[in-house]
């Protein structure tokens, strides 16, 4: 073979070897890669497997998470429902339902309203310049309300009041001295057209007391009085001095407007509550609802404690008692009878609150004709009365015998009538004998009492007074004919002066002896009694701020009253309220006011 061919073959073989080597190398490499890839693939597969496991785990976790979230959502829903329940229960606890037998008599206008319940509502929704401190024992602890400070001239005929700034009326305008002046000017201007109103002559006599009101500056007002009047602060704290909002207080009287609570009172809505609802049927209240007032001048104090007060009205004490026992109402106030309240005291589901009272009852004699135109006869009958018997038997000790027209706790209270005693038959017989009365010629008269429930337990009282006056120890010297009339007829009989002797009662307009002492000769009692000396002492007492002198003067009035017996004090009531145990913050003080904004549950 030629050499070239051998070389070519060698080259080819070499090339072949190279190619083969390369191929093999390549193949090996590829195989290696493949192997690597396989390994990687395996790894990958493994990883994928792992990943799958992870994903599976993730799915499981996600599933659990979803379940947990669902559970959480359910829990949240539960929580919301429970929160709503709690809120609902809180809302119920934020509402006080009060049962009462009272009713607003006419209106909630300070120029006219002269009934206990009307004044009660007015106190919750309006404000006066000053008020009596809750829990006061004397009724003379005055605290600022719409006025922050005050002072008077030396003769007490000029009074300056500095008003609280920042108090707004319902339309956003500030309550200023002009508002105060308007309130008092309006009240006095309405007196001739509202003769039965509280400020009227014969009641509080604002037109006799006030001379004029003057605006000194935006927040300073001055009152000029016709005479020095020491109970002036007491007058200013009573509901007849409520500050009105001119927009709702035209000079013409504002009456109840059905379906419009706001238009039904001219009072400025600056008190703790607003009148949210006032439903009446046939001039009797069905429901009154008070809502917390965001415009209340004293919100910073944390009052009112309760957001809503709902008054429900019951026809008599028996139905009211059933309502509080059944739990239909949270609180029963005015009137629960003494028998019922003592019984309810033993009820573990109820709580009875006790307080001092200032409601008094007294016996009046018609002095213009026989037999009571003879002072000896009046004194004789007064001495034969047995007060403790009445207070224990009828009121079960919840009223106290009263021996002065001024109730205990008030300045000027004495025990003057104790001088005559109770059931003092020896003294009675002596006096009647002097007046010509004996068994053969007995003293005969009619004793009247009110029979429609205006005064508590009148029939029972009258019966006991008669028993005392016709006691066998008197030997038949006194003969009493009991007579009764419903309230409207009773007042008419009083005015017609046909009742020989009659039982009458009194609540304080303001807590001051000035509001009581005049009862011995009050013209509206029509007993035709007058005593210039007593009146002079009375006027002197109201003209001085010297407490010691006033006390002395009222004692003198009492002493004369014992000698004359035109009007004989009988008893003074206590005060009580019945509530569920969850109710707190009730003050029953001498003012007889129920301050609902202090109450909490």
């Amino acid at each position, binding site marked *: 073979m030629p050499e070239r061919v051998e070389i070519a073959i060698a080259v080819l073989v070499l090339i072949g070897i190279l190619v083969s080597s390369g191929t093999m190398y390549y193949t090996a490499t590829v195989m290696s890669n493949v192997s690597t890839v396989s390994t990687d693939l395996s790894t990958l597969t493994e990883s994928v497997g792992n990943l799958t496991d992870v994903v599976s785990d993730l799915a499981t976790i996600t599933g659990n998470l979803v379940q947990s979230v669902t559970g959480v959502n359910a829990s949240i829903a539960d929580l919301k429902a429970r929160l709503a329940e709690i809120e609902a229960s809180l809302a*119920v606890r934020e*509402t006080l*339902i009060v049962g009462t037998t009272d009713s607003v008599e*006419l209106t909630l206008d300070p120029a006219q309203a002269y009934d206990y319940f009307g004044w009660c509502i007015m106190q919750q929704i309006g404000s006066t310049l000053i008020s009596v401190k809750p829990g006061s024992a004397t009724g003379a602890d005055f605290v600022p309300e719409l006025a922050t400070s005050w002072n008077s001239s030396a003769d007490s005929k000029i009074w300056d009041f500095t008003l609280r700034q920042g108090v707004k009326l319902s339309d956003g305008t500030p309550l200023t001295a002009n508002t105060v002046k308007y309130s008092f000017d309006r009240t006095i201007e309405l007196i001739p057209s509202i*003769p*039965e109103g509280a400020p009227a002559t014969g009641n509080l006599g604002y037109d006799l007391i006030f001379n004029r009101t003057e605006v000194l500056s935006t927040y300073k007002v001055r009152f000029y009085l016709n005479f020095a009047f020491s109970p002036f602060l007491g007058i200013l704290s009573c509901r007849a001095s409520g500050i009105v909002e001119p927009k709702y207080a035209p000079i013409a009287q504002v*009456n*109840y407007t*059905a379906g419009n609570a706001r238009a039904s009172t001219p009072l400025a809505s600056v008190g703790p509550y607003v009148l949210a609802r006032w439903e009446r*049927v*046939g*001039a*009797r209240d*069905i*429901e009154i609802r008070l809502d917390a007032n965001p415009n209340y001048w004293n919100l910073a104090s944390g009052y009112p404690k309760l957001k809503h007060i*709902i008054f*429900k*009205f*019951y*026809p*008599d004490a*028996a*139905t009211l008692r*059933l*309502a509080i*026992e*059944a*739990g*239909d*109402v949270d609180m029963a106030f005015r009137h629960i009878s003494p028998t019922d309240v003592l019984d309810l005291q033993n009820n573990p589901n109820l709580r009875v609150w006790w307080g001092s009272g200032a409601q008094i009852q007294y016996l009046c004699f018609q002095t213009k004709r026989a037999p009571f135109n003879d002072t000896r006869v009046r004194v004789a009958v007064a001495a034969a009365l047995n007060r403790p018997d009445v207070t224990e038997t009828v009121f079960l000790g919840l009223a106290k015998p009263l021996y002065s027209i001024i109730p205990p706790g008030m300045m000027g209270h004495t025990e003057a009538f104790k001088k005559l005693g109770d059931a003092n038959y020896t003294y009675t017989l002596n006096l009647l004998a002097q007046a010509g009365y004996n068994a053969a010629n007995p003293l005969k008269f009619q004793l009247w009492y009110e029979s*429609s429930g205006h005064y508590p337990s009148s029939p029972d009282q009258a019966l006991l007074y008669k028993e005392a006056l016709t006691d066998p120890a008197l030997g038949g010297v006194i003969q009493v004919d009991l007579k009764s009339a*419903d*309230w*409207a007829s009773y*007042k*008419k009989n009083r*005015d*017609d002066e046909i009742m020989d002797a009659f039982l009458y009662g009194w609540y304080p307009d303001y807590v001051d002896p000035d509001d009581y002492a005049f009862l011995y000769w009050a013209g509206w009692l029509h007993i035709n009694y007058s005593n210039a000396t007593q009146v002079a002492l009375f006027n002197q007492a109201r003209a001085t701020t010297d407490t010691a002198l006033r006390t002395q003067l009222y004692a003198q009035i009492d002493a004369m009253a014992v000698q004359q017996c035109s009007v004989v004090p009988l008893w003074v009531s206590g005060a009580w309220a019945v509530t569920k145990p969850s109710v707190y913050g009730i003050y029953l003080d001498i003012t007889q006011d129920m301050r609902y904004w202090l109450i909490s549950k």
Partner: protein
Amino acid sequence: MGLRTYIVTRILLTIPTLLLLLTTVFLIMRVLPGDPVALHFEKKATPEQMEQMRHLLGLDKPLWEQYIDYLWGLVDVGYFLAHGYPNLGKSMQVTSEDVGGQIFSAFPATLELAIYSMILASVIGILLGVVASKSYNSVLDHLIRGSGTVAYAVPVFFLGIVLQLIFGVYLHWLPTGLRINPSVEPPATITGLYTIDSLLEGNIIKLFESFKALALPSLTLGIVLSGIFIRLTRMNMLETLRFDFVAAARARGLKEGTVTYGYALRNAFLPILTMMGLQFAMLLGGAILTETTFSWPGLGRYIVTRINFRDYTAIQGAVVMFGLFVALVSLAVDILYAYFDPRIRL
């Protein structure tokens, strides 16, 4: 005569009856001694104020003019449409309030109580009466008769208080008074009947509370009134069950229930219907004792308070409306009577 003719005739005959009633009330209020204005004011007002009141009430006009005004006020459709109640004058106590408005605000409470009381009285009385008649002279019959007598004899206020004690005070199941739970706002006034207004409002809670409040007073009145219906139903059923058509119905194989309620009771029902009408009319005047016991603010309590306040125009208005209710209910009963018994129309 046909039913329609009968109805028209009865309506026309009711008019002179009403006129007689209204005239009598008018005359009585003005003939009685005493000046109502002076009595109302009890000498507290000045002569000028009393004159102003007389003018407001139209008492300063001649009697014939007052009479025309009085009648016109009742038929003045324009006034009725504008106010929703007839013109019965102004209240003497609150002179800005219409007596018609006062009466019509108190009336729904009385109407609601009357309706449910009458339903209960009728159902209890008629059912027990039928049962008693069916078990004549048995122990059950005597028991039912005795219960009916006791039910009618027991004073309504006493029964009311007993139910209040049991269900209200001891069991705390039902409220002792008022028209609705004090913590629940009353439904918006549409008809004035809380149950109907709650339904119209779609408020189940208010509906439930309204029925709860109605339960005791309507049960009290219902039990007392059922006594009459028990005896009346029993008596009439005993008589009717003796009739031949009842035997014939039984002979035809009708079920006893059908015979009793479908045949006998239908025929015995007419006197019961008359009594239902009379009792319902009386209830519309206001069940004073029941309303007082359950603090129900209806016409009964309204009239009592108006009397206490010497509000003569309100008293007159209430008497007039009561007379109208009785006349209207009597008319309705007569018409129903004629519907059930065609012989009446002859």
